[in-house]
């Protein structure tokens, strides 16, 4: 019996590792910025170039930062969802227009809707680098103290919104 138990056991162990591994997404790089202060920024608003938006302006409110670009196809997948979500008024969503041209970004918002309270203009992607952005779209949840509490990589889905983001927003709002 032992002769069969040992290889069987080893096989089951390997099968377990395979099952666990298949559930992981190797392209997802967890952010080291969770529970760390959101990096400082100061940049112009997409729609109003003369207006400056700074990270310090956000202190005191719970907000979402959604990184998008007009050239990003996947961003369109989540956009309708974000527009809907912004209308419910749970938390303000600020956009980060990443490596884009002003006219292209504004045109995109005109065509597909604008869920953002305001949009930061980041033409050379420096703010993106500070936030560890490596592929749009990405979405951050930041609390009143300016600490990043959650990062979602890829388009926001209804499930992520319902199960992760919205409960977190409510929790942070009541804190």
């Amino acid at each position: 019996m032992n002769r069969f138990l040992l290889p069987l056991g080893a096989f089951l162990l390997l099968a377990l590792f395979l099952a666990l591994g298949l559930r992981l997404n190797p392209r997802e790089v967890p952010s080291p910025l969770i529970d760390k202060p959101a990096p400082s920024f100061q940049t112009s608003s997409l729609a109003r170039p003369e207006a400056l938006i700074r990270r310090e302006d956000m202190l005191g409110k719970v907000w979402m930062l959604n990184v998008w670009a007009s050239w990003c196809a996947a961003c369109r997948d989540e956009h309708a969802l974000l527009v809907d979500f912004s209308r419910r008024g749970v938390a303000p969503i600020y956009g980060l227009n990443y490596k884009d041209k002003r006219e292209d970004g504004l045109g995109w918002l005109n065509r597909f809707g604008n869920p953002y309270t305001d949009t930061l203009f980041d033409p050379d992607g420096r703010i993106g680098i500070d936030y560890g952005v490596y592929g749009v779209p990405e979405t951050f949840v930041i609390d009143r103290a300016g600490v990043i509490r959650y990062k979602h990589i890829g388009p926001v889905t209804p499930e992520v919104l319902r199960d992760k983001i919205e409960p977190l927003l409510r929790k942070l709002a009541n804190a």
Partner: protein
Amino acid sequence: MPKLERLLHGLLAALLCLTLVSAQASEAPVVAANPEIEARMMVLAAELRCLVCQNQTIADSHAGLAEDLRQQIREMLAKGMSERQILDYMTERYGDFVLYRPPFKPSTLLLWVGPGLLLLLALGTLWRVLQRRQRLAPEAFDPDTPDEDAAR
């Protein structure tokens, strides 16, 4: 005629050997503003992983993010930041995964030690199996004798 044949064979062999010295087309070297910074940047970039094309380093990758980060590294070097500082800058924002060589930490212990351990385990099992076989009677290796009989 054997002499001509041999000459031709020799010529053919020589020609074939020349193909070993293959033409290697590589990218035209970037004419950078500061070649020294460029060289240092490439050394650092070879230590960092491109997060878009995750099997490549930032030095090799053509992805937009890789170009941005190479530019970032150039600027940091020009500002006088040390290599340690630049690598820390990257891991602060992207985590340990951005280092092309995984650091040796408790969390990566299994990654580093695992293959060696598995090898030892396999060799140990092989040793035991071989030892056990040494002790079996010669009849156990006779294909005509059933195994249970020979093991006694």
